[in-house]
């Protein structure tokens, strides 16, 4: 069952789904790092 060929469009879905959560998360991390760097100034 698990060796079955992947559904069509899986690659696009993977990209879209991960970008959906990845972009806001990376934005939040970037904001946090920008604040954290104040510590080292």
């Amino acid at each position, binding site marked *: 069952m698990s060796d079955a060929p992947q559904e069509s469009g*899986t690659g696009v879905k993977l990209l879209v789904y991960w970008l959906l959560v990845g972009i806001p998360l990376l934005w*939040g991390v970037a904001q946090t790092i920008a604040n954290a760097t104040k510590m080292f100034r």
Partner: protein
Amino acid sequence: MSNALSTRRPPGFLDREHIVAGSGFNRWLVPPAALCVHLCIGSVYAFSVFNLPMTRLLGITKSAPDDWKLTELGWIFSLAIVFLGLSAAFTGTWLDRVGPRKAMLAAAACFGGGFLIAALGVSMHVLWLIYLGYGVLGGCGLGIGYISPVKTLITWFPDRPGMATGMAIMGFGGGAMIASPLSVMLMHAFSTPTHIGVADTFVVLGIVYFCFMAIGGLIVRVPAAGWAPAGYVAPRQSVGLVTTETVHVDTALRTPQFWLLWWVLCLNVTAGIGVIGQASAMAQEMFPGKVTAVAAAGFVGLLSLFNMGGRFFWASVSDTIGRKATYVVFFVLGMVLYVLVGATQYIGSEALFVLAVCIILSMYGGGFATVPAYLRDIFGVRYVGAIHGRLLTAWSAAGVFGPVLVNYIREYQIDHGVVKADAYSITMYIMAGLLLIGLICNLAMRPVSEHHHLPGQEADA
């Protein structure tokens, strides 16, 4: 039997049967669904950004006599955490039965709706509406949204349950990093000389969070019965603490293992909260003149990064070294680091202080992320969502107990003439003592007695 089948209604759009994945489904499509929910509900950690603006809703530039006090506003967060634990405990069995889509949409409705009711409370200046909206309803959204995706990921990643749950729970840690700057930006955009934009911000956030969490509910899938990832062979026999048996949720609560884990989580969280709540003031008071208020704020941001990263890192490590060993690391390394934190002011090394606190925070997050897989190992996968829900009462207890304990110890010492900076050291030593109790609980963990296991047919049902 056939009559029963013929009268059974077809699965609805929200039902578990409707979202069973086909044979060619890629399981890596599921973690984003879980993250959609956890990134939103994790914003609870950033709720404090609203506290100061809400103390001058009437006075605008400064607090008016009828404005709310910080002490009154502090209850909003506490209520949300308490209802997180209560809702997770009381709805866990229902969540396991109805499946993740219905659960995640229910969480979206509660959490998004909670913001809207809170917005009404702000605009009418009625505090109990905010308690009810964000605290009670939003708190229920937190609890329901927290456990449902975790159980789903455990079933999709039987070969790496720690890493899978670490991914979702990392999202909970990361949610505050998004919510904090986003909320500040929105309040700034909505504020006018006669109006603080808190209510408008709540409305926007409520709608955005609802939509984002609902997307998670729509894209989530559950594996078909008997599904296993390619190349994975399920163990036939229990090995050490990792069981192949099933323990019913009601039975689990009667086992010493559940309560040992309850204390393991509670003490790990209590010790972590002891640092989180004081980090900024501690850095400034232990190193006067060296760490400014701005630097301390940056330090707190750094801690949230380690809190988030630790969730994924430690939970993934637990797949290799085992859950019990991972918690041994948390407690033993934690004790060393807490003592070290207390001693850094005498050594005069703020770099060592920062490093020690960052590692402590990574293990605080790691404790949350590793515990679902620990539960799966001990009680089996079937009721892990419901059992996890009940275990989260340990978080609620620590959320109340931790800050009270830390503040009481600190005030007691200062009242008895201890210098402020030294009072932190003693608090850290007491936290190390709590970790020692946690270590003992963890070392006492044994496999669940056979008479608690469900018989084969019931376990497979």
